[in-house]
């Protein structure tokens, strides 16, 4: 199943100019596409549009085509689309339902909303917990977990909806290095299991670790696109407000110091 955006533009209600313009994007299953860009470049808006929340929940005007395996999804209600495309946000605390007293109930919240058979809800919940490697936390109060663990719970809650695609908007923005590592491992594992993942991130080290393709946004338009390793080595990245990953910076520093050859062995 492939999520496709073709010529997509989006303008928030009351905004004088579009936040996204002429975006083309293909997200097949099992592939991680990274999205980078300076602040206000359109990363979050792209995530909202790709997940269907914009304009359904956010409002505003959209143009272009969004399809799942060729089928237009414009008329789909959010609860239907959410079973195909899950979206996670940067603040783990706001993604918790606030009404679950255990991690198990938190992860089960989505399938319960879908009115599935109880056994199906339970199976999906255990599967999602196991996939994220957090089944040991099942009886814990989600509000008392670390930020990294809460983010894993939030992603498990999305997985329990059994979407083919995940859209993650800066999932590690509020996490420490340990939490970032947990989420990065989870993204890589999910992609191996067949999920198509669109991940918007400021941390280019994370993108370098998980993404196979990268697009860079500026003023709502795609300005760089290609294999992640190539785009991340592009010298224009700093001008676009995107920090180069540490491996690239190390290499540049080594070259500047005249030890580039030694670095490559």
């Amino acid at each position: 199943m492939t999520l496709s955006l073709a010529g997509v533009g989006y303008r928030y209600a009351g905004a004088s100019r579009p936040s996204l313009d002429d975006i083309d994007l293909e997200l097949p299953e099992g592939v991680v596409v990274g999205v980078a860009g300076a602040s206000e470049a359109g990363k979050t808006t792209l995530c909202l549009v790709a997940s269907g929340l914009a304009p359904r929940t956010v409002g505003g005007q959209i143009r272009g085509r969004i399809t799942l395996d060729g089928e237009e999804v414009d008329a789909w209600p959010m609860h239907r689309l959410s079973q195909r495309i899950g979206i996670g946000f940067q603040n783990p605390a706001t993604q918790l339902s606030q009404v679950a007293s255990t991690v198990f109930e938190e992860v089960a919240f989505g399938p319960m909303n879908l009115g599935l058979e109880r056994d199906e809800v339970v199976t999906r919940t255990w599967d999602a917990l196991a996939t994220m490697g957090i089944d040991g936390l099942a009886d814990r109060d989600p509000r008392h977990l670390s930020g990294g663990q809460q983010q894993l719970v939030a992603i498990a809650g999305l997985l329990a909806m059994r979407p083919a695609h995940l859209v993650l908007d800066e999932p590690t923005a509020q996490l420490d290095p340990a939490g970032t590592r947990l989420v990065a491992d989870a993204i890589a594992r999910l992609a191996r299991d067949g999920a198509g993942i669109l991940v918007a991130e400021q941390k280019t080290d994370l993108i370098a670790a998980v993404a196979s393709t990268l697009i860079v946004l500026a003023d709502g338009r795609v300005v760089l696109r290609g294999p992640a390793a190539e785009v991340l080595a592009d010298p224009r990245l700093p001008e676009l407000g995107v920090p180069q990953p540490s491996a690239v910076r190390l290499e540049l520093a080594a070259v500047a110091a005249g030890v580039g050859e030694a670095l490559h062995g």
Partner: protein
Amino acid sequence: MAGSDQLTVERGVPDFLGRPGPTAFHRLNPLTKATLATMTAIAAVVLGGLLGPIVLVTCAVLLPALVAGVFRQLVRTAGLLALPIAVSAFVVNLFFFPGAQQVLVRIGPVTATAEGLAFALEILVRILTISGAVTLFYLTTRPADLVLDLERRGISPRVAFVANASVQTVPAMVDRAAQITAAQRARGLDTEGSLWRRIRGVLPIVGPVILGSIAEVEERTMALEARGFTRPGRRTLLWAPSDSAMEGILRWGMLLALVALIAVRMTGTWR
């Protein structure tokens, strides 16, 4: 599908969901405990005098609290909860009871009267009964269990969510306030010392707590949408608190007793 094809773990509903409470009172259906608390609070107002409310608080609050093993906690919490209103109501009635004749003591311009003392004691017992009934409910029942039970009985899932989320928001805001207080103090804000200093210290904390909560609303709404919350129809419930025919009879019995009490009081059969 994401994370689903390779793993299908054969595990049932975990036994920690709906784990029975430690005592027989804890194990009562949440609606039964809510009915007891509500009926007790209303009866405390309907009943006049001192004896009625004292018998009521003993039978409906203190004895159940002993059975539930929360007696000391109940006395402490209910006392603290009732303290501000109880003290002010007691003082106002003791010193300013209209038309009182029998003077007990004069303190400067104000006079404590026997009629005022009698009425103040009645009010005090009523307030403590209401506070005790509510506290007993919260000490022995998780709000989420009550909401789940009401949802099983047919209440709208959205109403249930709003009720539950509202209750759960309080500790979340307390946590947020503690974090903001710590952050502001780290930047030199003085939140200790005299009353004036404490009041001055509150403003830089209240603003971020409230504005931060409002700012999160949109993201919370989107997160709920992304998890199928707006789907019409019933939700699946993983478990619901146990109930019995006996408890149903008990609830109706409490309701009928209250109706009878109100009728008796209104017709003046018993004063």
